[in-house]
């Protein structure tokens, strides 16, 4: 049996990699992909705890995380298309219409 802490460390590593992408990448699509990566690393933790505690609630929580992610991606990509159509920018540091 693989120790619980290995899964938690893997989750932390993937979360940190996703965070670097969110903070550093300039293209909004890649930022969204890295966000997916961070959410997925959290699901790893949930399922690892679920297995080690023999508790179904982690699975249910992970299903909800996946569902919310799907909804989030649909809305975010619609926003990206609208942004591209109206202002032709995709760089996160140039999306500053509302900053005075």
């Amino acid at each position: 049996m693989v120790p619980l802490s290995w899964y938690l460390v893997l989750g932390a590593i993937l979360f940190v990699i996703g965070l670097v992408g969110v903070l550093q990448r300039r293209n909004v699509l890649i930022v969204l992909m890295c966000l997916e990566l961070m959410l997925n690393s959290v699901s790893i933790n949930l399922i690892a705890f679920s297995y080690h505690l023999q508790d179904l609630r982690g699975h249910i929580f992970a299903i909800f995380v996946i569902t919310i992610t799907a909804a989030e991606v649909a809305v975010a990509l619609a926003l990206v298309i609208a942004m591209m159509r109206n202002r032709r920018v995709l760089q996160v540091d140039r999306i500053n219409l509302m900053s005075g």
Partner: protein
Amino acid sequence: MEALFFLLFAAMATVAALGVVLARNPVYSALSLIACFVQVAALFVLLRAPFLAAVQIFVYVGTTIVLFILVIVMLDLRQAILDRFIPGSRFWAPFVAVSLGGIIVAALLASDRLAELSSNLQSAPLTLTGTTRELGIALFTQFLLPFEVISVILLVALVGAILLAKKEHK
């Protein structure tokens, strides 16, 4: 044997995740993300959650990444390939992230409850199977309200996405 497979999948997932962050072309990022998600699905199988592994592949690889690639081919990405990173973030962003990772791992190692949990686990009986039947019963009895709420959220997201992406009639 299981540990060997875990290390294999974990290493491949990490490499693929790095590929997502470092790739120049967004299409390569999306393909790396597919590789990463497939590895995570394999980890779910190791954690005896076959239904979630299937959902992971269907929803993430089958829907989310396909949507991403669809949007990528619709857009002009020459600018994205030219400047990958936000100017001036080359040092502070990795620093912030690595410090956060260090804090997380230190907290894990220092946690008494986690150590206690890990020592108690070896003798715990394996009653959870993670099958569709078990999940379905839980989802439709104990977690019925969250299930209904999430379906409303999906509906709202669907309508919102169509509304946002629609061409405006002048």
